[in-house]
Structures are given as structure tokens and as C-alpha cells.
């Protein structure tokens, strides 16, 4: 359910009260997460970690005993990565919320930005082969969200 948009004066005076970071298990995304963590910590806001789950979402291994199904061992790769990021954020004493969205990455980020009324989105460039290039995800995010976007 979408949260009602708050008016600017109700949102407090913090610059980046709500920061969204798109996260995957890549180097660029890890840099983006660290930047988002620093900014959120300095601003005293809330960090929203968004992980997109594709159609081929990796759930728990099929032969995993049922007692492990709802533990870290039973989590799919994406959930496990999100759990780790959440732990890192909480260790840094940052308020954090995680969102696993069944959608393509850009759509997932855009949805959470709209739902949470984010002030800033931090995304990686999406490239991992030497030269930095803007991949489709950050481009799509920049084209569709209405807040500031930081590409690291």
C-alpha cells in the first residue's frame, strides 16, 4: 500500500531524510551502498535498500531440510545479500528498511522511491569491466524518478 505523501514542512529539515539504494551483488552496487550509508548516517535519515527479484528468483535450495528453510541458510542469494547489507547498516547505527521487489531493477527502485517519497537515490554505474559506463538501470532510474539521483 502506497504511503501518503508528506508535505515538505512535515518531512522535517533534514536534507536526505529518505535515501534509497539499489543493491545487487556487484562492486558498483557495493560502492553505491557505502555512499548511501555515509550520507544517511550523516543526515540522520532512513536508508531503504532495494533488491530486485527477477522471474528466476533464487529461492531456498529444493532439498534443504524444512527446519533451515526460514534461516539464513534457506535464504536465496538475493535475500542473503540483503540481510548482509541490513546488518552492515545496523552496525553503523543507521535506520534501515529492506525491500525485495519482484520487478526489473529500475522499476523496483522507482516503485520504492515513489512509495517512500525519497529525497535521494544512490545507484552504481552498473559497469564492471574497467571503464565506467552508465548502464540501463541508472539511466532508467534517472529518467523516471522525481528526486535527486547520485551515480557513484
Amino acid at each position: 500500500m502506497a504511503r501518503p505523501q508528506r508535505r515538505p514542512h512535515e518531512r522535517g529539515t533534514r536534507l536526505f531524510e529518505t535515501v534509497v539504494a539499489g543493491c545487487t551483488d556487484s562492486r558498483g552496487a557495493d560502492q553505491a551502498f557505502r555512499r548511501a550509508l555515509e550520507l544517511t548516517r550523516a543526515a540522520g535519515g532512513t536508508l531503504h535498500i532495494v533488491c530486485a527479484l527477477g522471474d528466476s528468483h533464487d529461492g531456498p535450495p529444493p532439498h534443504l531440510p524444512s527446519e533451515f528453510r526460514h534461516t539464513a541458510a534457506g535464504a536465496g542469494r538475493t535475500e542473503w545479500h540483503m540481510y548482509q547489507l541490513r546488518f552492515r547498516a545496523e552496525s553503523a547505527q543507521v535506520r534501515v528498511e529492506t525491500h525485495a521487489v519482484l520487478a526489473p531493477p529500475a522499476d523496483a527502485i522507482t516503485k520504492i522511491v515513489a512509495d517512500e517519497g525519497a529525497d535521494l537515490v544512490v545507484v552504481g554505474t552498473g559497469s564492471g569491466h574497467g571503464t565506467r559506463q552508465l548502464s540501463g538501470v541508472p539511466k532508467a532510474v534517472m529518467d523516471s524518478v522525481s528526486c535527486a539521483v547520485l551515480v557513484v
Partner: protein
Amino acid sequence: MPGTLEKNREDAGLVSRSDPQGGGLFRCLLVVLDDSAAAGAAVGLAREWARTFGGEARFVRIEERPKGLGHDRVGHRDQSPEPTRVVAHGRTLRARNHSLVEGITQAAVALRADVVVLGCDHRRLASRRLCASVRDLLVRSTDLPVMVAPATPAQESTEEGRGPASEATPRARYAPV
């Protein structure tokens, strides 16, 4: 033990193993402005940033001229190493975009910027067929983080042919100053 503390900070994501300084908050923002409404939003964002986190914002105004080649960097005074204006030359949009990005990159180096904030017309930041956009070229040509300032409601309505956005939207936070 210092080693343990450092390890804990690494685990918390505050320090990178490859970057022992941990990056830190941006201290110098290079704000690139044109005459669009997004430029006003970028100025507002930069001022808010400086007030909240400290640091300084340096502003560079961009201009385009369809004649000539390359780019000029213009300072407050002649021979000034710190540019306040980048004039891009080129007959085509593609040539001007390349020229502009080269000028912005050099300005970022000259001003020792930590981040480039693009307060430019959002149509200019979008790719067009064979012409890569300023933001794409900038990301390719520099290792600095690039921030795109939010468009203002006025710009949004102009670009998308819709009515002005309500005051409650996040865009309204950084109103032109």
C-alpha cells in the same frame, strides 16, 4: 586493537578495503548550471548540502556556441585557474556535448571537486539516437560521482506537457532560489 577497530569499521561498511579513507562526505561540490529550471533546483540543493553537511559548492555556468571547436574555460579574471564558465563549441549537438563534458571534467580537476552536480535541462541529459547525453559522457570520462538535481515542477510540466506538480512532491523541496 587498532586492527580490530579497522576491521569492525570495514565490516560496517564505513571504510573500504581499497579506499582506506572511506571516501567521506563530499566536501567540494561542482555544480554545473545552465539557464534551465533544474539549475535553480541544483543551486538550492547545493546550498542545503553546504548548510547540512558543511563543505563548499562551486558553480560553473555552461554556454554553447555553434561555431568553432573545443571549449573555453573562463574565470573571474584573465589567467584565473578556477573557471566559472565553460563555453562549449561545435556545430552538432554531439560535438558540443563532448566539448562540454571535457570542459566540466577539467573544471572538476581544477576545483578539486568531490562530486559533480548536474543542474541542467533534463532533456539535455537524455540520450538522443546517436548522440550520447552529457550525463553518460561525464560518467565515462571521470571517476567522480555524478548527481543529477531533481527537476522543478515547472520544468516537469513544460517537458511532459502536464500540469504543475503539487507542493507535496519531492521536487518541490529544492525550489529555485
